[in-house]
């Protein structure tokens, strides 16, 4: 299968070579972490301090600054996982496989955060810890999908096979997510009527919106950082017999970096 002209393909292959990726990611990580921390600090300052309290929800709405970006990330990462998985499946690029599986645990974490913060936000708003609200329910199912991916990967011993399995599953999942989402919304409106939609659309003011966007961007950076860290580990584990890993290990300076 050739959809990509050769020079670009060759370039991608070279960039995707494990030692190159390992070295490059090592150089990039401090910068990424720096940008993330700055964005995070600005977002938190704006969200927790500068933004005024909501006229209905008071200060409890400030959970939005982690809840909503996490919910966005949970979906975004699943899609990234499916795309990179497909790339790995079609073009047999090892690195794409690694990015796919390294994304899974980060995505699952964000889904978990979205669920927990949603519940913590719901308690003062609805008076109960859990409501079968469409968004929370979808998020819960998404968490199951992530756990399925992670569980399948760990259950298969041969990691190359496991990557393929994960890619197939992620693709099936990504086709299903819109259907699941739609069905859950539909189910929710039927059974409860249009109840708690405050969580979806708080009357948002610019001073509230800017920190939200900052946090969303910060979380994107965080995802890249966490995914790269996990990918570096995964890469070393898979390539531990390769010459470049042996060389890397034997250099004492590297064992500390």
């Amino acid at each position, binding site marked *: 299968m050739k959809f990509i002209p050769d020079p670009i393909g060759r370039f991608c292959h070279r960039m995707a070579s494990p030692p190159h990726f390992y070295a490059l990611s090592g150089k990039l990580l401090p910068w990424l972490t720096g940008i993330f921390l700055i964005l995070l600090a600005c977002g938190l300052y704006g969200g927790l301090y500068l933004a005024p309290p909501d006229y209905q929800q008071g200060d409890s709405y400030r959970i939005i600054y982690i809840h909503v970006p996490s919910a966005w990330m949970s979906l975004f990462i699943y899609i990234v996982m499916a795309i990179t998985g497909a790339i790995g*499946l079609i073009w047999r690029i090892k690195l794409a496989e690694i990015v796919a599986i390294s994304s899974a645990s980060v995505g699952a974490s964000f889904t978990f955060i979205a669920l927990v913060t949603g519940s913590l936000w719901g308690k003062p708003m609805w008076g109960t810890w859990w409501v079968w609200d469409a968004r929370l329910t979808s998020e819960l*199912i998404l968490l*199951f*999908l992530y*756990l*399925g991916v992670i*569980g*399948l990967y760990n*259950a*298969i011993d*041969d990691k190359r*096979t496991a990557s*393929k*399995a994960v890619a*197939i*599953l992620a*693709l*099936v*999942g990504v*086709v*299903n997510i819109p*259907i*699941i989402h*739609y*069905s*859950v919304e*539909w*189910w929710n409106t*039927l059974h409860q009527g249009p109840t708690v939609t405050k969580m979806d659309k708080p009357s948002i003011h610019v001073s509230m919106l800017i920190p939200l966007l900052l946090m969303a961007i910060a979380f994107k950076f965080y995802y890249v950082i966490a995914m790269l860290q996990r990918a570096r580990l995964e890469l070393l584990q898979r390539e531990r017999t390769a010459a470049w890993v042996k060389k890397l290990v034997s250099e004492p300076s590297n064992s500390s970096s």
Partner: protein
Amino acid sequence: MSLTHAFFAILRRDLILAVRRRSEIANPLLFFILVITLFPLGIGARPQLLQAIAPGIIWVSALLAAMLSLDSLFRSDFDDGSLEQILLSPHPVSILILGKIVAHWLVTGLPLLLIAPLLAVFLGMPQPAIGVLLLSLLLGTPVLSLIGAIGVALTVGLRRGGMILSLLVLPLYVPVLIFAGNAVEMASNGLPVTAQINILIAILLLSLVLAPWPTAAALKMSMN
């Protein structure tokens, strides 16, 4: 020999095997009946409550029965090497696998359909809803087999595949459960259900077209 011939040869073979083994047909059916019998025992003989939750009970039980029967879809073929031979066929593997899935549905899904009216009566479901229940099962259970096949294909090579299989498959069953269960519930209340049935038809067609591909790919992956 043509592809249709191969498709029906596989279908016929699996049906003959099921008839010779028998337990494959009986087990999910027994499970289905038992689970539904347990609900009144657990909840209490309260006709009103049972009637209200009957659509959900029947559909969740059908879903679990379908899931438990999934393992038999590829297990014996994987263990004795028949699956290797199917994958080595020059015919498109996804079509051959579809033959296996259809056979599996005829053996495990269709019997549920036949016994469901009886169980619906047990739970006091009103007359008109039973027709809709059958229709929803007719449209929904093949989807369970089709989607389930992907999960089994991914886990058939694993020693402890059972638990992980349910984790993979159950979230994907959610839309079917929602629309089918809701259709039956609406019908019990005398409301129209065209929308739900149309959606179920769409889901069935979609999974019929799409599901065999990842199943075939996953089986190839499980072979090494």
